[in-house]
């Protein structure tokens, strides 16, 4: 059987890695090279590298960094952020990414997912869903109203979609529901994560990277109800993200919420042997995960010192 995975999520901003809280970047933690080297050494199963830069002109620097970073990464590397064309996907893959993480671009354009899946295979596509808790019942289909995309979702009345969302189990537990946000967590869409995940699965994404905006950076643990609802609704693997404060949170996500992989970002920085410690804990708890062992990367540290 396939093993559960421990994934480190790196947020790249203007050449440096940052930590994030509620999708706001709080501080810079240093070079991505150091992080990739150490996490490789410390028995990580996969790395997700996201370009969270707000400045479009930094994109070329990201591409340059990716080319170098991928040559030091001997675990699968998923790369995303600002990906909205198939050409951009092709470029990332040729620069050494193994998978591409897509989010807002995919939400706006169905054809983007379909084309990407057709061209590179769906195992290449990781759909990132950023969700926030909401008191309003979200719709269970995407609406064209907010999205300036006239071809789909028209004619769905609010009443009809609300009732079918309840029927599909999206609103179980009656009080907590979630809404998908796009554009780096800024723009609400009125769509439930379960509905969006199902839809995207049908169009051809191979994995879902599910982040809770509320929990992001809090250290209070994953949003288990969110993860459970999506993991129960789709067949593709679901990666839990957002809120790890201790390793028990990872165990909970796998055992209680049935996540196929657990990901964390902030907690892995500033902690000696962080990912290996997490791995040890999961392994000791009897979770079917790759054996935690050190790997001597054997490459000279790079960069030694970087000055712009």
């Amino acid at each position, binding site marked *: 059987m396939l093993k559960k995975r421990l994934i480190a999520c790196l947020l790249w901003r203007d050449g440096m890695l940052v930590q994030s809280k509620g999708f706001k970047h709080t501080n810079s933690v240093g070079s991505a090279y150091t992080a990739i080297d150490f996490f490789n050494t410390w*028995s990580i199963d996969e790395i997700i590298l996201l370009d969270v830069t707000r400045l479009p002109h930094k994109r070329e620097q990201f591409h340059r960094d990716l080319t170098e970073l*991928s*040559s030091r990464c*001997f675990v699968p590397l998923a790369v995303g952020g600002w990906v909205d064309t198939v050409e951009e996907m092709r470029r990332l893959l040729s620069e050494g990414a193994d998978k591409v993480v897509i989010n807002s671009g995919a939400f706006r354009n169905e054809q983007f997912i379909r084309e990407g899946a057709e061209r590179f295979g769906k195992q290449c596509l990781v759909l990132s869903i950023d969700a926030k808790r909401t008191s309003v019942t979200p719709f269970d289909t995407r609406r064209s109203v907010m999205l300036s995309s006239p071809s789909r979702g028209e004619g769905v009345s609010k009443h009809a979609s609300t009732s079918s969302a309840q029927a599909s189990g999206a609103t179980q537990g009656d009080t907590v529901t979630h809404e998908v946000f796009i554009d780096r967590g800024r723009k609400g869409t009125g769509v439930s994560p379960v509905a969006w995940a199902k839809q995207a699965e049908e169009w051809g994404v191979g994995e879902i990277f599910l982040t809770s905006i509320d929990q992001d950076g809090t250290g209070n643990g994953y949003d288990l109800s969110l993860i459970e609802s999506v993991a129960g609704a789709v067949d593709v693997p679901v990666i839990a993200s957002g809120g790890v404060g201790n390793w028990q949170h990872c165990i909970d996500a796998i055992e209680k919420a049935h996540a196929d992989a657990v990901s964390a970002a902030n907690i892995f920085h500033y902690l000696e042997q962080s990912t290996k410690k997490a791995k040890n804990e999961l392994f000791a708890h009897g979770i079917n995960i790759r054996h935690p*062992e050190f790997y001597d990367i054997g490459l000279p540290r790079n960069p030694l*010192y970087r000055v712009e």
Partner: protein
Amino acid sequence: MLRYALAEPVLSAVEGARATQHDTAARIEGRFLYNGRMIALIDYGAGNLKSVANACAAIGADIEITTDPAVIRRATSIILPGVGAFAEGMDRLRKAGLLPVLHEEVIEKKKPYLGICLGLQFLAEKGFEHGEHEGFGWIKGTVKKIEPKDPACKVPHMGWNDIDLVRPSGIFTGLQEHPTFYFVHSFALEVDPSERDAVTATCEYGQTITAAVQKDNIFAVQFHPEKSQNAGLMVLKNFCTLSHASIPLSINA
């Protein structure tokens, strides 16, 4: 700037020369390990070429990415990587005119060959991905879609999985009993019972999947050693060591 200025003389003393960010591969010590014995990494337009090149560079192998038959003839061994569809891959190899040269070098001259993922599936006589297509036919068998009996096992088979080393093979030297590798595939090689001895490793995923084969100088793995960290790089390293040991120097001269 100050930190840099202080660090520079120390680094120069240690490294001999100032290292820049863009020559990682050239700076790797192991580069000299297999010096002058080049491995041809065949570029036929299929994905993951860069990953394989990176991993080979990291273990110190001297590789040349190529589509040129002359380079393949000059190489001591051949690696054929690949992610993608069977038919398209075969088609590209055919169009690049590589099939005759591969046959000549691997079957007639017995150069070590390492197939990765699609490079393993090509060994079959036939592939059934999007219709029926002819493979190299170096190993009797067919490539069929994975159909796990367990509904919890989804296709594609993607992620880390343990393999069972069912028969000894040179490329598995030094590995643990059940090493873990990274897999990404929807189709798998079914080896004909008459050549069952060629299967060196299997993997359980709702059915038994052929994870590795070996027939004389032909090695192939279904998983991705370039993305499987310790265990994977060990396999690549073993292949390098093995292939360089088994080839007389004169071929390279």
